[in-house]
C-alpha cells in the first residue's frame, strides 16, 4: 500500500459524505440534521463528485480545489444568512457548518506534500527489484 493511499481514500470518503448529505433534502423536523434544499443538493453532488474523482485520481490539486469549493460555498451561505435568509442556497447555519468541515478537511488533505510520481520509485530501487539475488556463499 502506498503511503498516500490513506489520504486519497479520506478525500474519497469526504466526497461520499457530501453526496450522502444531499439525502437531507428529503427530511424535515427532528430528522433534518442539516438543511439542504435544491441548490444545496447541487453543491453537495458537484463538489462531492469532485472530491471522489480527486481521491480516485490521487490528485492533490483536485482535492485542494474541492476543499476550496466547499469553503466558498460555506462562505456564500454564511453571507446569505447574515442578510436574513438562506438565500438561493436555501441552507442554514448547519449547512454552513457541514461545508466548513468538508472544506477544511479536504484542504488539510490537499496540503500534505507528496512526492512527484517519478520520485516514488527511485531508479536504483527499480533495478534492485529485477536483479536476481546472489547465491554465492
Amino acid at each position, binding site marked *: 500500500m502506498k503511503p498516500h493511499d490513506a489520504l486519497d481514500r479520506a478525500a474519497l470518503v469526504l466526497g461520499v459524505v457530501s453526496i450522502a448529505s444531499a439525502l437531507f433534502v428529503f427530511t424535515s423536523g427532528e430528522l433534518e440534521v442539516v438543511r439542504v434544499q435544491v441548490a444545496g443538493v447541487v453543491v453537495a453532488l458537484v463538489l462531492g463528485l469532485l472530491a471522489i474523482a480527486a481521491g480516485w485520481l490521487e490528485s492533490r490539486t483536485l482535492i485542494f480545489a474541492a476543499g476550496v469549493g466547499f469553503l466558498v460555498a460555506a462562505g456564500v451561505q454564511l453571507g446569505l444568512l447574515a442578510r436574513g435568509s438562506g438565500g438561493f442556497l436555501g441552507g442554514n447555519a448547519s449547512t454552513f457548518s457541514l461545508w466548513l468541515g468538508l472544506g477544511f478537511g479536504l484542504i*488539510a488533505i490537499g496540503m500534505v506534500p507528496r512526492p512527484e510520481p517519478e520520485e516514488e520509485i527511485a531508479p536504483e530501487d527499480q533495478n534492485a527489484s529485477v536483479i536476481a539475488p546472489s547465491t554465492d556463499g
Partner: protein
Amino acid sequence: MAGTDYAAGTDYPTGTDLTADADADYAAGADVDYTADTDRPARAVAFLPSRIDRALIAMVRIGVALLWLQNLSWKTPPDFGQGDPPGGLYLSTTYAVSHEVLHPYAWLVERLVLPNFTFFAWMVLLVEASLGAFLLVGLATRFWALVGIAQTVVIMLSVVNSPNEWIWSYLLMLLVHAALFATAAGRYGGLDGVLRPEWQSSRSWLARLLVRAS
C-alpha cells in the same frame, strides 16, 4: 505493570504480550496509530486495538458533531431572536439573568453580553459551527473537544435553571467531550488518524501544533 485490555475489557497480568492484537491489525493492514501514546521511538501499543472499539469511538465523535450541527438551526442571524417577543438564542441567553445559575456569570451576561448581543451571538454561531465541522471530519479533535467542554459550561451557566431543563443533558455533554479528548477520537475513522503521521514527520510550527491538537 497491570493495565486494562481495551479489547476485552479485562485486566491482564504482568508480562502479557500487549502488542498481540495490534500486530494482528497491523498484519491485516489496519490504520493503527502505534505512536498514539508515546514519544519513544519504539512502536507503541495502539490505544484502541479492537476495530469495534475504534468504530464506536468514531460513531460517538460523529454523533456529537451532528448534535452541534443540528442545534445551529435555531441560531438564526442576523437578529438571533432579538425582538418582541424574544426567541431563539437571545431568549436562551436572557435565562442566565432571569434564572440565575452563578451570580458572577449572570452579572457578566447582563452587563456585557446582552448589550452587545449581536457580536456574542455571531461568536457562538462560529464556535458551534466549527465544533460541528471539525468533530465531524475528526480534524484537531482533541482541541475541539476542549472547546466543546468550554461551550457546554457556558450553556449550562445560561440555561440549566430555566424551565424544563435536565441538568444531566449538559453533564452528559461534558462527559462525552471529555471522552473524545481522552481517546483522541479523531485518530479513529477521522482525519487526525490519517494526517498525524505526516504532521509528526514535519518540522513546521503548524504541524507541531496540529500534533498536539489531535
